C-alpha cells in the first residue's frame, strides 16, 4: 500500500473476507455467488439514487456495505432480497444521516435487521444456515453434552467452525496491517466470552452453550472483525470502542439465549452502536479529569 486512502481501506477489508466468501460458496451453493454480487449492486444503486454524487460511489463504502450484508445473510435470502437489503442499508442506515462518515449505525446491520424483520422466513439464521444456534435454542430438554455429541463440530459448532476460522484469519490480517483499531474486536470477544461464561451453567438442559461454541458459531467472529469494527458507526474513541465491543458481545449472548432470533448479532451491534456517542462522552470526560 502506498499512501492510505479511504477506497483502499474499504477494498482491503473486502479482500480479507474473500477466503470466507469462497468457503461459503463451496460449503453451501454456487448460487450464493449471485447473492454476493446482488448485495453490493443494491447498495450502490441506493447510494447512486440518494447521494446523487459519482464521488460517493467510488469511495468503496457502499460496495463494502452491500458485500458485508450479502455475507451476513443466509443463502435462503436469495439475490433479489439481498439487493433490496443493500438498498435499504443505504436508504435507512446511511443516506439520511449525510452519507460517508456520518452514519451512527452500521448500515450493513441496518439492512440485515430490516430484512430479518420484514422477511423473517427467508432469513432464519445468520450466514451459517439454519443450524447450530437454532438447533441449540430448540434442543427440547437435551442436556448440553447430549446435544453437543449429536453435532458434527467441536463444542457443537458444526460446519460453521471453518467459516468462523476464515473470518478469524481475515480479522488477523486487518489487525496486522493496522487497517482497524484493535479495541472494538477485543471488547467484542471479551464481552461475548465473559457473558457466555456467566451464562454457562456447566451443561444442563437450560445451559446457554459452551463459551467456545458461542465464539465459533453463527456470525460472532464475522461481527467481531467486520461489523463492530466499522469505524464510522458507534464509538470513535479507543475506550469507547472497547466498551462498545464489550456491550455488543454481551448482548449477542443475551439475544442468542433469550431473543426470538437464533443469532442476535445484528441487534446487539445496532444497540451497542447507539450507545457509542455516550461512551465517547464518558471517555472524553474521564480523560479530561485525569489530565
Amino acid at each position, binding site marked *: 500500500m502506498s499512501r492510505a486512502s*479511504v477506497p483502499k481501506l474499504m477494498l482491503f477489508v473486502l479482500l480479507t473476507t474473500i477466503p470466507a466468501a469462497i468457503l461459503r460458496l463451496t460449503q453451501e451453493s454456487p448460487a450464493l455467488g449471485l447473492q454476493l454480487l446482488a448485495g453490493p449492486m443494491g447498495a450502490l444503486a441506493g447510494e447512486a439514487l440518494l447521494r446523487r454524487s459519482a464521488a460517493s460511489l467510488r469511495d468503496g463504502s457502499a460496495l463494502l456495505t452491500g458485500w458485508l450484508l450479502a455475507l451476513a445473510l443466509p443463502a435462503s435470502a436469495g439475490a433479489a432480497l439481498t439487493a433490496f437489503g443493500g438498498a435499504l442499508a443505504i436508504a435507512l442506515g446511511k443516506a439520511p444521516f449525510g452519507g460517508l462518515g456520518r452514519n451512527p449505525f452500521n448500515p450493513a446491520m441496518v439492512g440485515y435487521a430490516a430484512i430479518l424483520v420484514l422477511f423473517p422466513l427467508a432469513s432464519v439464521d445468520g450466514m451459517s444456515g439454519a443450524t447450530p444456534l437454532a438447533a441449540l435454542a430448540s434442543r427440547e430438554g437435551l442436556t448440553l453434552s447430549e446435544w453437543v455429541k449429536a453435532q458434527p463440530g467441536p463444542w457443537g459448532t458444526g460446519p460453521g467452525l471453518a467459516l468462523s476460522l476464515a473470518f478469524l484469519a481475515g480479522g488477523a490480517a486487518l489487525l496486522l496491517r493496522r487497517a482497524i483499531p484493535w479495541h472494538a474486536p477485543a471488547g467484542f470477544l471479551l464481552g461475548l466470552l465473559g457473558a457466555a461464561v456467566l451464562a454457562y451453567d456447566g451443561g444442563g438442559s437450560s445451559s446457554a452453550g459452551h463459551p467456545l461454541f458461542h465464539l465459533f458459531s453463527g456470525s460472532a467472529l464475522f461481527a467481531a472483525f467486520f461489523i463492530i469494527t466499522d469505524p464510522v458507526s458507534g464509538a470513535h474513541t479507543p475506550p469507547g*470502542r472497547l466498551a462498545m465491543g464489550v456491550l455488543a458481545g454481551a448482548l449477542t449472548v443475551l439475544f442468542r439465549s433469550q431473543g426470538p432470533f437464533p443469532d442476535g448479532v445484528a441487534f446487539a451491534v445496532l444497540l451497542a452502536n447507539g450507545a457509542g456517542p455516550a461512551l465517547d462522552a464518558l471517555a472524553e470526560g474521564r480523560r479530561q479529569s485525569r489530565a
Partner: protein
Amino acid sequence: MPCIHCGACVPVCPKGLWPNQLYQALAQGDLARAEALGLARCGACRACQDHCPSALPLTARFREGQQQVLRWTEAKTRAAEDAQQAAERYEAREARLQAAEAEALEAKRQRRAEAKRRAEAKRPAEGGTDARRDAQRAALQRAMEKARAAGREEDLARLTAALAALGDGP
C-alpha cells in the same frame, strides 16, 4: 473525503491525543471540547495528517484552533475586565449618590435647627421672660402693699388673684 474515524491518527500521535475527535470538535466550533481534548498540547508534528486516509488538513486545522482558543481566551479576559470596571463604576456612583443624599439631609437638618433657634430667640415678645414676670410680680406686690395700707379690700383680692395667675417664681 470526510473523516471516517478510522483511528489511524490515534496511535501515531506522540502527545497521545485523539486527533479524530479533536478535528470533529473544531469542525463543530466547540472550542471548549477541543480544549478539553488537549488541543493546546498539539505540537503540529503532522504525524496524524501523514497517516490520514482521507487526507484531511489536520495540522493546519489544529494550529488555527489553537489561535481561535487564544483569541477566545483573550476575549474572555477582556470581557471579565470590562465587567469588573463596570462594577467598580457602579459602586463608585452608588457611593457618590448616597454621600450627596446624606449631605443634603444633614444640611436640611441644620437649617431646621437654625430656624428653630431663631424662632426661640424671637418668642419673649409674646410669652414673657422670667425677668419680666419678676417685675410684674414685684409691681403687683407693691400695689398690694398700698391696697392693704389703704384698706381697699376688693383691690387686694383682685391683685392676689392676679399674682396667683402669674404663677410661682423660678
